[in-house]
Structure formats: C-alpha cells, structure tokens
C-alpha cells in the first residue's frame, strides 16, 4: 500500500455520491405487488415448488424422528425385533426417497421460476425501452440502464431463489419448535429460553453490521465505477499519460474497499461464536435438565438425543433468515430501480383503431405545428408547409432553429403539441407506428452500426431482402468497392460501433441501409455533416441515387447538397422564415442569401452573429 501524496485535482470514478443504494424500507408493497405480477404467470410451477419445499422440510424433520423411534423402540438388545427393524428401515428408505425427490423438485422448480421471471423482467424492460420517449433515452446514459437490465434483475433472481427456501426455513423453524414442545413441553421451553438472548444480541449487533455491509457495498461500487470509467476512457488516459496517477488513485480505492470489507467480515464473524455458544448453552441445558429427567424416569433417552439433534439444526434457519433479510433489502432497492424504468411513460402510443397505411404516395404536410421539449424553450412555432410526392426539400437554418425536431416529428418520434403532421393526408397520430416506419426512413448524422457482418448491417430490419438486394444497394451508394476489398467482403464482421471502418465508410453503409429499407419518404438529418468534403462527390452521387423517386427531406448545411433540392425551407428560431428555390431565395435577399454570401462550405461554420 503506497501512501504517497495524491494530485489535488486527480480524481477517478464518477464523483457522485453512492447513496443511490439507499436502504430505506425493507418492504415496499408496491414493488412487491408489481414484482409478483411477473411471478404470477408461473403460479402452477410456484405451487408445485411450495409443495415440494414443504414436503422436503417435513421429511427433513422426520428422518431423525424415525431413527430415534428405531433406537428407542425397535433396537433393544436381545429383543427379536428383526422384522420390526426391517419395516422401520423400509419406512426410512421411503422417507429418504421422498426427501430426495422433493429436494430435486424444489431446487429445479425454484431455479426455473427464478430464471424465467428474470428473463421476462429483462424482456419487459427492454421492450419498454423500445417504446419510451426518445427524450428519456437522450437524457439517460446507457450504462445506467444497462446496470438495471443486468445487475438489478440478477439481484431479484437471487432473491427469488432464496425466498422460496426462506419459506422452507420458516417452516423448519416452526417445525423444530413444535417438535421440541410436543416431545417434552418442559424441556422444550427451557431449551428455547436461549432465543430471547439471541434476539437481544442481534438487536445490538444488527445496526453496526448493516452499516458495515452497506459501506462495503458502497466502496465496491466506487471501485467498479472507476474501473468502468477506465475502460471507457482508455484512449484519453493514454494520451494524457494518467496511467500512473490513476493506478495510485485506484489503489487507494481498492484499499478502502479492502478495509471496509475486512470490517464487514469482522462483524459478520463475531456472530459465529455467539451463536455457537448459545447452541452449546442449549445443549448444556438439555444434558443437565434432560439428564435429571431421564434419571427420574420422566424422559426417554431417545427424546433427549432428539433434542440434541434438533437444537443443532435450530440455528441454521435463523442464520439463513438473516441473510434473507439483507437480500430482501437489496431486492427492494433493485425492484424500485427496475420499476423506475418500467414506469417511464410512453409518449407516443398507437390509437386503438390505428390505420395501417399500406400504399403511400409520399405527400407530407405540416399544419401549424408547434413543439417544445421544455415549456420555457419553444422549438417550433406554428410551422406549416407541404411536400408533394417525389419532391426534394431542404431544410436549412442555424443551429437550434428546429431542423432536427422537424425531422423527428415527421418520423413521429414525438407528437406535436399543437397542429398536425400528415402523410398522404392522414394525421400521423391516426396511423400505426409500424406503418409509418415502413414508409419513412432516416439517415442520421452519426452513422450508427451494429456489431455483426456488413450484410446484416445493410439489410438490418428489412429481413425479407436477400444478398442481391444488399449488394445492389451497396453498389448504388458506391460502398461495394471498399466492401469487396475487406477480408470476407460482405461477411466482414464489424467491431462495436463499426470501429474498424472509417467514418465515411460507415456513412456509406448507413446510406445503403436506408436504400435497402426502400421507403417512399426519406429523411436525411445532417447525414453528410460528418463526412469530409473529399467524399463530397461520392456522397453526392450516392445521395442522388438514394433520393431518386422518393419524397425527401434533407437537413444539411452543405451548399452543394442543398442547391440540388427542389425547394428550400429556411428555419430560424423555430419559425419558417423563407421558402423557395435557391434562385428565388437569393432574389428575396433574406437570411438564406446572407448565409450563402458568406461563402462557407457549411452553415455551421457561420458565426452566430451573422444570423441576426
């Protein structure tokens, strides 16, 4: 452990308090109810599992009893009881067999239910995330959602697996208590007199232990967070030569983690001699009191031995119930975090009798459309325009003028707050989202690709298309040549995010993907912003092929891209300020003409002062 001086501004890991894992209420009725709705489909399996657990516990209790019955009543020296012994053995063998089967069933069923529930939960979350408002997805970092999809569901799985056994433990506990009292009430009560002592000890021990466990978990997540950060930021770390500093800072975190874990271990283990001592105490009581009773003839030897057996097993369920308690706390927290995801509202929902638009000519109209993400900042104000089938429209305007929002509304990522967006005269809100998707596709600024082959990426959701379609599309956008040069060609496997291709190549693939989707309406949302001007011609050619015969909305800043369009809409501060062809707009001599005259390759290069 090197304890040098650390740099004053050197930090690693998210500098956010880790009180996220708050241990509030152990039992949250709402969480439990919602969670139970995921278990409910498996009610029959669950019922069988519970029966198996009960049978298992019963046989577990019965085995010592049978043995002691044998010792007390059958196996007496000299008595010719071979037949009786055989039948007792047969009975015991039966109990053992039932015990085995019940054990097998309970483990298999419980594990199966838990696994199924987790898969269902994860799927429900994942499916829900496919539908929730995009602004939620924009605001939420992927890692956080992932941890809910993974570790929180995992915690619930663990909880579920153990909770059924916890029921078994409770039954076992009561079973032992009842058996003891039935065998001999007086001795039973005396033996159980140690329970209050245990409760008192626990009362003082638990708060300390819980705090220590929580601290250990916190430092765990701090260290894990720092590791995740290091993995994500590795290039920056290398470039900035922070390796050594980070290693020291991380060592501090790991050491802190070690210290808290050791403290937690200490507190956990302090418990062991106490429980063992109390067990010993109970046994001592049995030996003394029971011994006297045996001597006075009030008790059979077998019963006393039974007591000794049961007392030893008495603490097992108590111990596992303690574990179960903290398990439950964690499960509640995880459950709340999962519900948070499931409760994110869906803002765009199909109406019950949503129309499935089959044939689409590609006519678009915006009618007095207004929209904002937060009430303070209006994004679009009463924007109206229409696009005839096959027309190519460019939308230009300074950053923040509402261009991308227009595109998002056309694809119905959001619904307008007032006014209507129509395709072929149908308000988008009356159409099914799936059918909008079949007629409108988008190419975005960031050409996101999935890991998998190039073929899979170009074809993407259009699973009905074949290899020839994919190759044709790639050829059309001019991607075929570089694909053919890659090892494996179309079967070349892309890394995460297409990292083994250049940005321009990725953009060409995303064009091909849009081409294969073959929709009537195509939206290019700043699709060429990231591509160097070198590929301008290639991209321009690809674009022309892509746009051919479709209604197109092109959001762009490159003059070259814009000039080819039939009509240009100029947005400024959420309002449509100018509309017309390049020449018409130049003649009006307004904002567009001013932007053009500045002679920048891209409107993004225009200083904001020029737009006022």
């Amino acid at each position, binding site marked *: 452990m090197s304890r040098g001086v650390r740099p004053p501004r050197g930090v690693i890991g*998210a500098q956010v308090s880790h009180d996220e894992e708050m241990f509030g209420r152990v039992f949250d009725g709402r969480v439990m109810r919602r969670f139970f709705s995921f278990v409910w489909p498996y009610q029959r399996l669950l019922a069988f599992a519970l029966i198996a657990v009960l049978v298992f516990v019963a046989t577990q209790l019965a085995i010592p009893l049978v043995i002691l019955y044998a010792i007390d009543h059958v196996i007496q020296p000299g008595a010719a009881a071979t037949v009786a012994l055989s039948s007792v053995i047969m009975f015991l063998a039966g109990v053992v067999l039932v015990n085995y089967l019940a054990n097998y069933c309970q483990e298999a069923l419980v*594990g199966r239910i838990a696994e199924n529930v987790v898969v269902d939960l994860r799927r429900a979350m994942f499916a829900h995330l496919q539908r929730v408002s995009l602004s939620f997805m924009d605001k939420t970092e992927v890692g956080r959602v992932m941890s809910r*999809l993974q570790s929180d569901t995992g915690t619930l799985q663990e909880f579920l697996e153990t909770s059924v056994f916890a029921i078994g433990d409770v039954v076992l506990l009561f079973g032992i208590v009842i058996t003891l009292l039935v065998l001999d009430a007086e001795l039973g009560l005396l033996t159980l007199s140690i329970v209050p002592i245990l409760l008192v000890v626990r009362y003082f021990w638990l708060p300390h232990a819980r705090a220590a466990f929580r601290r250990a978990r916190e430092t765990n997540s701090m260290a894990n967070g720092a590791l995740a950060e290091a993995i994500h930021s590795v290039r920056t770390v290398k470039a900035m030569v922070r390796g050594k500093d980070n290693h020291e800072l991380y060592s501090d975190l790991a050491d802190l983690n070690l210290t808290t874990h050791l403290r937690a271990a200490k507190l956990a283990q302090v418990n062991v001699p106490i429980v063992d001592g109390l067990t010993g105490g109970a046994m001592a009581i049995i030996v003394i009191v029971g011994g006297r009773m045996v001597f006075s003839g009030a008790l059979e030897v077998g019963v006393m031995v039974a007591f000794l057996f049961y007392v030893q097993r008495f603490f097992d369920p108590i111990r596992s119930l303690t574990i179960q308690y903290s398990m439950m706390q964690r499960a509640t927290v995880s459950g709340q975090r999962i519900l948070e995801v499931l409760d994110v509202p869906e803002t765009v929902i199909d109406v019950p009798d949503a129309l499935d638009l089959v044939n689409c000519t590609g006519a678009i109209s915006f009618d007095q459309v207004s929209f904002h993400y937060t009430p303070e900042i209006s994004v679009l104000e009463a924007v109206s325009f229409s696009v005839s089938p096959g027309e190519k429209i460019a939308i230009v305007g300074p950053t923040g003028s509402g261009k991308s929002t227009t595109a998002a509304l056309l694809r119905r990522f959001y619904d307008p707050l007032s006014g209507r967006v129509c395709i072929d005269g149908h308000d988008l809100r009356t159409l099914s989202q799936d059918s909008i998707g079949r007629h409108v596709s988008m190419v975005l600024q960031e050409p996101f690709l999935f890991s998998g082959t190039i073929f899979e990426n170009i074809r993407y959701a259009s699973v009905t298309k074949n290899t020839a379609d994919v190759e044709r599309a790639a050829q059309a956008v001019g991607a075929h040549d570089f694909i053919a040069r890659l090892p494996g060609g179309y079967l070349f496997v892309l890394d995460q995010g297409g990292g083994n291709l250049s940005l321009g190549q990725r953009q060409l693939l995303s064009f091909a993907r849009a081409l294969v989707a073959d929709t009537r309406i195509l939206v290019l949302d700043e699709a060429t912003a990231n591509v160097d001007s070198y590929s301008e011609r290639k991209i321009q050619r690809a674009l022309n092929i892509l746009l051919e015969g479709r209604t197109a909305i092109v959001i762009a800043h490159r003059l070259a891209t814009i000039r080819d369009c039939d009509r240009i809409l100029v947005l400024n501060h959420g309002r449509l300020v100018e509309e017309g062809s390049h020449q018409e707009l130049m003649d009006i001599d307004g904002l567009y003409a001013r932007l053009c005259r*500045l002679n920048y390759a891209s409107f993004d290069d225009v200083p904001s002062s020029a737009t006022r």
Partner: protein
Amino acid sequence: MVATLLSSGFQLFIPRYLGKAVDNAQGFLQGAVAGVAEIEAALWLSAWMILGLSILRGLFAMVQNYFGESLNDCIAADLRKAFYHRVQQLDASFHDNAHTGDLITRGMLDLEGIRHFPSTGLVRTVMLLVLVVGGSILLISTDAVLGLISLSFVPVIAVRSAIARIQLRYLWLKQQERLTVLTNAMEENLTGIRIVRAFAAQAHELLRFDKHSSAVRQVAFERLMARVRSMTFMGFSFFVALTLALWVGGNKVLAGEITVGTLTEFLAFMMILQMPVRQIGMTVNSYARASTCGARFFEILDYPNPIESGKTLPDLKITKGEVRFEGVHFGYGEGETRVNVLSDITFNVQAGKTLGIVGPPGSGKSTIARLIPRLYEVTGGRILIDDQDVREVSLHSLRGSVGGVQQDSFVFTASVDSNIAYGNPWSDDAGVIQAGRDAQLHDFISQLPGNYQTLVGERGVSLSGGQRQRVSIARGNLINAPICILDDATAAIDADTERRIHDAVIARHDHRTSIVISHRLVSVMHADEILFLEEGKIIERGTHEELLDLRGRYAELHSLQMGASSSVEAALAQVSPG
C-alpha cells in the same frame, strides 16, 4: 495463509471432541446406575464440556472464517489493482478489438466469482477433508464394517462432484459467453436507439433480444439442472448411507455385537457430517465458477502487450521538438486480416513549425496521429523525435511529450476543473482558468451553477459536442507538451470560435511543434507544410499557395469547400466586420 491452515487444523479437533462429548453423554445415559451425586457431577461435567467445546468451536470457526475472508479480500484487492493496471496498460489495438461490456464483466463479475473461492472453496474443502479423515479413523476403529458403511457416501460424492465440476465449469463458461453476447446486443440497441426507431426496427430488435436471451436461458437451465442433479444426488447418497448404517447397525445391536450407544454415536457423527456434505454441492459450484471466471479474468492479465515499455528504455530527451517519419508503413490487425493503412510516409516537422494533414476519410490521417505517441507500433520504417526512435524511449516520457487532442474526447463524471486538469492534476487554479480561457470555454463555465466545480459528464451537466472538444483542447493546453497533435479537434466548433482558440493558443505556445489534422481547409491552410493523404500515401505536399498552384486534388477540394468563385481571403474579409 498460516492462520487459515492453523484454524483448519483446530477444526480437526472439534468434531472429535464433539463426537466424544456425544459419546460421553451417551455413555453416561446408558450406564446411569451410579449414585445421585455422581450422576449430578457427571451431568455438570458433560454440560460444561459441551458448552466449552461449543464456544471454542465458535471461536475457532470465527478465526478461521475471518482469516478466510481476509484472504479473499486481500487477494481480491490485489487482483483488482492488477486488472485495472493491465487494462490501462494494454495497447490501443487490444482495446479496438475488445468489447467494453466484456471487459467490464470480466473486471467485476468474474472477480466476484473468484473472490469467494479461497474461503468457500478451499477452506471448506479442507474442513470437509479433516472431518472425513478424522471421522473415518474414529468410526472404523470402533467398528470396521459399520464405519465403512457409514462412510460409503464419501467416495460416491467424490466421484459425483468431480463429474459435476467438469460439467458446471463448461456450462458456466458457456453461460458467461452467451451473457456477454446478450449484454452487447442490449447495449448496442440502447446506444443506437435512434436508428432502431428510425427504421421501425423494434420488432426486429426484440427478435434479436429473444434469440440471445433464450440462448442464455437455455444454458442457464442446463446449468441449473446439472447443479440440482449433483446436489440432490449427494444429499440422497448421504441419507441412503444413513439408512444402511441404521439397518446394519440395528441388526448388530440386535445380535448383541454393539451397544445402542455405539450406534447412536455413529448416527450422531453422520448427522454432524450432514451440513458439510450439503455444502459440497455449493463448493463444487463455486469451484466451477471460480475456475471459469479465473480463466476469463487471467486471460486479460496475461494478454501479451506488444508495446509494453521495457524498464531499461531511456527517457525521451526533447531538445528541439522535431518530428520525423522515415518510410513509415502501418496496417491494423494481424496477418490475413491486416488492413493496410499507411505506406511509405516520410515527412519532417521542424521544431516550432506546424504541419497540416488533409485527406479523405480512411486515408490514414488519424493513424499518423496515433503512431507518434506509439499507441500502435509501425509495421515498417521509423518515427523519430529529436533523432530518437519512439520505440527506443520509455512510453511514459514519450506520451508526456506528445500532447494529443482527439476528435472524440472523453468527458469524465467529475468537475469541469478536474476534467481540464486531467492530464496535469497538479496544476493550480490559475492554470486551469487560463486553459479554460484559451479554449474559449471560460464564459460558458462562468455561467454554470458551480463554475469550475460544476459536475459535468454523464451524470452531471451534459456538454455539447463543441464544448466537449473545447474541454479537450483546454486539457491539451494545460499539459503544454512540446509536440502537439490536433486530430480533427475542432470539427464541432464553429469557424469563428476556432479562430479565437487558434490565436490564443498560438500566442501562448508559439514554440511548440504542431501537427494539425482536419477536414476543414480553414484549419490547416496557415500551416508551414500541408500533406494531402489519399489511401495511405502522400499524393501532394507543400504550402497552401504551392498546393493551389499545383491545381491537383488540394485545389479541387479548396474550390469545393470555399465555393468556386471566391477566395478564402474574400470570405474572411466579409466575416470579420461581422
């Protein structure tokens, strides 16, 4: 380690004493014919013995468990540090091919899988061995036949657990692999959610999810059943042995060969063994898990690192700051799959001068930026800084002298202040603020609720692309390295701001050697030399004017970017009055 062995050693005596205690009590109960006082004394003696032994056992168990846990935690802490260090050390080509999700899984979940092994696995195995060996001696010496029957379940369990271990190890590995696939699929879906929505691919994505998810579930079930089969069978074999012992023992008692007390002793000992036997299943499971997780974990730790800086390499000595490429070749990947990126690149940037590099995407511009700090190893030729080959100086000194500002810069979830000072965490307030000012970031930061202490990044205030790039530039300013590489560092910054940043940086650091890579000619045209790269080769080189006169690819690009009829000067002249 010593403590663990010692406490395991103590453990040896406990079942023996416990067995003896039961034996004593039993013996006493059977032969209860002596006087009342004697009985009373014997009772008390047994009681005290049991109590004392129980407490002793508890104490020893505590010590043993505590040291076991400590051992776990110490090993885990060491492994943690080693993993972290390794991840940082591994070169860029490793990270290109590694999925971040997979690395994180290995560093967290696999570590958890290993960490519990020393105590739950090793210690428990030792304990069980001690109990079984001790018990065997005790039982077999009492009655050989009955002893052998009582212990008959031990070999069964040994064989069964060996089989289970192999099965479970294999299944764990399979499950972990499939889980990684699922994780990556989910992560990608969430990252690319806009594309998913744009293509109405939700159904397609759910199908993909279901495919991966049911693959995970299937192997999870297999694993579950393998575990259940072996665990329940072990429990069963124990009870069968118990039944057999009762049967044979009972007949022996009936035949008068042994006493009821002896039989009880046998059964009692078997009862004591019951818990550890039940735990064998868990131990086997945890062993399978630990060895699978361990294999995955150590794969990273043992991954060969071609660019590891040897300890003997001398530090880079910067005398002027001259960068020279001599016939450099480079390709990503190995052997068959190698994609050639750069061929025969030769250039020389003199101290204090600026080199501009332009070229189409995929032409190898960024690769040049990555080769200088030796993030990748050249496959041919050499790179010299002040006549020292980058491969012959220590990585630390090399990267400390080369300040790079990348296109995609990582913003840490920390204060703006810590973010700017990332490369130089020792710098003072004034330095950070100056770097912020030079990067044209100060005004923005001043508006933030906590100024320079405001939390930014994923959980804090989110920054736009341009702001992120400016944070990155500020970082570079603060390092003040003699060689500075700007790799498309201003792509998301408007031209006006870029010029102000440029002026401020030049004013403060005019002595440093710069390499500017950009797709905007505005950013490179003032450079002392400009290289035009295409398909990994330099096809044109010279100053802005020389290249325009050449009327080649550069001039063509220039006319495309600047508009056919007007010159750059004219464009700038129109903006400046603004």
